[in-house]
């Protein structure tokens, strides 16, 4: 990744993280504020419910008190004190009085707990009122009570009054229903609603959950909360997910409502919609997304501008470094600032200047070393034939002075020696001359297998010469081999040099392998021997001109091979292990680039 992209990424990431952090903080603060507001609203609603509950309770007490004090009740009490009640006379009494007093429930119960008249269940005359607190004193305040009805049960806010006109008391039990109408009277702020669960069954029942509209949609979602309150009998809060839309979520506070004997009779459920919070959070996120997007866009533009300012000198330095790497050592960069990058540019310029100086010094040194090596080689090569020449000439002089009669014979012998050594000198000189005048390859379509086979055929006789240990030559030529573009003469010479080297490496005999193969757009020739092998140091210097590991070598053979291969656009490598042999690998392009 380029420095400019990294800079851009850092800028964008910084902006993004900043926006995320701000969004998270704002969301958290908003959520806390919303929940605090919800709690306050819930507390207010519960207080309102209790106030309404108490107000209605007082009203029920007042109405029951009025019924207890009425003439009709007094007459009923007097009649009851005189004997068995005439249920027929009071069948509709309860209903009539309850309607007059706007009560939903009203029962007249005698001292034995027998219902004399019932407004809510007229047919229940003569039955026992099981909920009448016989052993306890009559409660003064209104209380929650379960009312059994023909079609089920209902929750009532009831009051009891005792009428003592005759010998036996008459109880007046009146109440008002706690139902959806009661819930509808609660003034709820927007986003809040009240539900009510009538706890008439041990298990959760859908029909017992009501709201001001009558029935609650998806009441089963409330079931776990209701069941928890049924078990714990304490206030509980739970987040209800009504649908996959988070806006439909509702925080529901469940408040248990207990009866006189501490029995759980109902559960008030106050729901706070989370839609306002979700919408606000959505708006915050949208704004954050907008700001974040804008910020990232701005960051891209800004970072582009900054990166351009910052990275241009760096890029110039990088380009200059590539120039230096390509060999253009006198490359200089413009120093446009005095900051760190300016210093870096000045240092780079100084570095290239120093490198140029050092290169020139190195070239001088290498040139001197080359001349020294050449002189050493020439001296060494020339010294060998010169020494016999000197001896031969000294022998001639000595023969002329000491044995003139044998001078003629010595002269003939010496002349032949002199000529042989002079021939040697000419050979040495021609080799140097040849190395200095390597011809350029003349490319043509060449079957590599043919070249290799010709070389093997050429050396077949030498490999099996009787004056030396036999070398087994093995050819492994890939078929088919596509022709390559090469100079057959130069290629033949290079492969011959390598075969000669291999033969020199196997004075005790061995196996010479010549292999060809092709891979993709390259052709390969491998020459392997089973000779003494080379050390790693020898491998490194093997292709250096005039370097030789042989006693009488000129060090030009492999140099010539490398030169030929290089002129063909290929390369040569060597793999060797001491004592196990050496393999030269020539890699050539199938199509010449020249």
């Amino acid at each position, binding site marked *: 990744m380029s420095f400019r992209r990294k800079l851009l990424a850092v800028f964008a990431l910084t902006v993004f993280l900043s926006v995320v952090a701000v969004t998270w903080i704002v969301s958290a603060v908003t959520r806390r504020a919303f929940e605090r507001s919800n709690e306050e609203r819930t507390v207010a609603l519960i207080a309102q419910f209790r106030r309404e509950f108490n107000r209605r309770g007082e009203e029920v007490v007042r109405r029951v008190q009025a019924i207890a004090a009425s003439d009709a009740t007094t007459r009923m009490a007097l009649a009851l004190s005189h004997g068995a009640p005439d*249920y*027929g006379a009071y*069948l509709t009494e309860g209903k009539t009085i309850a309607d007059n007093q706007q009560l939903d429930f009203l029962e007249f119960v005698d001292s034995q707990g027998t219902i004399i008249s019932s407004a809510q*269940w*007229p*047919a*229940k*005359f*003569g*039955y026992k009122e099981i909920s009448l607190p016989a052993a306890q004193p009559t409660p003064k305040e209104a209380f929650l009570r379960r009312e059994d009805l*023909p*079609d089920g049960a209902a929750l009532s806010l009831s009051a009891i009054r005792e009428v003592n006109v005759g010998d036996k008391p008459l109880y007046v039990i009146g109440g008002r229903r706690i139902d959806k109408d009661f819930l509808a009277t609660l003034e709820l702020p927007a986003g809040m609603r009240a539900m009510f669960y009538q706890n008439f069954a041990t298990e959760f029942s859908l029909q017992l959950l009501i709201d001001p509209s009558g029935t609650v949609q998806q009441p089963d979602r409330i079931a776990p909360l209701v069941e928890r309150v049924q078990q714990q009998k304490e206030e509980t809060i739970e987040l209800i997910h009504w649908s996959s839309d988070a806006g439909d979520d509702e925080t529901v506070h469940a408040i248990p409502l207990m009866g006189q004997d501490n029995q759980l009779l109902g559960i008030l459920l106050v729901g706070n919609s989370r839609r306002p919070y979700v919408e606000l959070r959505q708006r915050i996120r949208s704004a954050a997304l907008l700001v974040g997007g804008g910020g990232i866009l701005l960051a891209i533009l800004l970072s582009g501008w900054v990166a351009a300012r910052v990275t241009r000198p760096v890029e110039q330095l990088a380009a200059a470094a590539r120039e230096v790497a390509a060999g253009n050592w006198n490359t200089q960069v413009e120093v446009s600032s005095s900051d760190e990058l300016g210093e870096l540019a000045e240092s780079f310029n100084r570095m290239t200047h120093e490198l140029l100086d050092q290169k020139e010094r190195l070239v001088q040194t290498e040139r001197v070393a080359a001349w020294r090596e050449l002189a050493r080689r020439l001296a060494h090569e020339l010294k060998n034939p010169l020494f016999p020449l000197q001896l031969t000439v000294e022998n001639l002089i000595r023969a002329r002075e000491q044995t003139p009669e044998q001078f003629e014979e010595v002269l003939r012998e010496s002349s032949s020696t002199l000529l042989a050594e002079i021939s040697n000198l000419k050979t040495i000189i021609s080799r140097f001359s040849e190395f200095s005048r390597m011809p350029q390859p003349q490319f043509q379509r060449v079957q590599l297998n043919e070249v290799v086979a010709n070389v093997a055929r050429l050396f077949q006789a030498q490999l099996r010469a009787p004056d030396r240990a036999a070398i087994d030559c093995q050819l492994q030529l890939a078929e088919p081999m596509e022709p390559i573009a090469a100079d057959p003469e130069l290629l033949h010479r290079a492969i011959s040099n390598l075969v000669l080297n291999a033969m020199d490496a196997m004075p005790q005999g061995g196996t010479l392998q010549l292999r060809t193969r092709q891979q993709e757009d390259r052709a390969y020739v491998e020459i392997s021997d089973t000779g003494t092998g080379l050390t790693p140091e020898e491998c490194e210097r093997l292709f250096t001109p005039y370097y030789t590991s042989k006693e009488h070598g000129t060090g030009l053979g492999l140099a010539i091979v490398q030169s030929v291969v290089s002129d063909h656009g290929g390369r040569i490598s060597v793999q060797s292990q001491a004592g196990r042999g050496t393999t030269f690998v020539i890699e050539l392009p199938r199509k010449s680039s020249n």
Partner: protein
Amino acid sequence: MRRFALPLLAASSLLLVVAASAATRPHYGGILRVALRAAPASLDPADPNQPGSLARSNISRLMFDTLVTLDNRGRLHPSVATSWEAEPGNQRWHVYLRRGLSFHDGSAVTSDAVAASLRAANPTWKIFPLGDAVVIECDAPDPNLPAELALSRNGIAKRDGKLLGTGPFAVADWQPGKKLTLTARDDYWGGRPFVDSIVIEMGKSFRDQMISLDLGKADLIEVAPEQAHRAAMENRSVQSSAPLELMALVFTRDRQSAEEGRLRQALVLSIDRAAMNTVLLQGGGEPAGGLLPNWMSGYAFLFTTDVNLPQARQVRGEVRQASPWTLGYDPADPVARVVAERVALNARDAGLSLQLSGSNSADLRLVRVPLVSLDPRVALASLATALGLPQPKFPGDSGDSLYAAETALLDSQRVIPLLHVRVAAGIGPTVRNWTASADGIWPLQDVWLSAEKP
């Protein structure tokens, strides 16, 4: 002094006699105002879509004569028919028509018209005119055919576009379900009714009817049986009939197993009919153990009506599991509701669960069925039809066969009789010559209106 005293006493006595005869002398004219709770949409006596009720029979008999009538003792009397005779086997009957009768539009009553009228009411009968007679051929021997001809559904009606009858009153105005105005026929073969017209307001609640009577806006009203006693105690003129309506529980299907039969038996034993009658109906009926009231059958006392809760619990205990039943009732009938609630309470005491339901789809229903005939066999057959029970078989004419037929219906455990309910009417102070009828039919063609209140 004594000489003047005797003539003065004689004159005073004569004045009293004249005044008394003036008060009892029939008075023609006037409009009789009637209020009813029922609101029939059709006046056709043979319309099967209209629920059978005493009020409908009352209206029908004002406009449509039947071939035969029954007196309070259930004896047959000629009406549109003068005589009738059965061929051997009692399957084919010849009914001879009264001559000179006419419909309300003046057209003559012919045997063709009578046959057409009877066919509309009895699709299973084969009826054809034969001179001045009609021949009725039933699908089975029917010795009670003349009594059946006295049913109000067999009122003779002419249905060619306009509904016409031969009764003492003709339709002057008809607002279905709301108001019916009838005018007296001067040429009625049985003599002109005393009142000129009758205006019947329909769809009035018992309470509204009572208010109308108290305010003098109605001369004749229906009184709920449970209110009859109180109304009489409040110095209103209330006439109650013998129990003419059966209130019963009817299971919608036959018992499916012996266990279900035990549960039904437990329900029968748990019901406190006496309390229902004395408290809920305020004595406006009788506890019913049978389908026919005792005054009609003479043997109804043989069917026990006592509650036996211990036995009910024991029978209930013989069944391990019992799914709750739904008890349907007419929500518009306050008495039906309170009786249904009491039945549910009684059943609960026996360990049975009854859930009340105002819908028609219930395991058993609380129904009120009028006794449409004073003939016990016809009444029982009509009850069976109305209750959806199989038609009773009468092996003979004796009372034993009637008892056996009724017992068979009860043994099917499809029906549980609860109460026989009286029918009561509130009569205004100007209404005269009201004679109670055993079958609850209002004798409006015989009443006349006094000009002054007593």
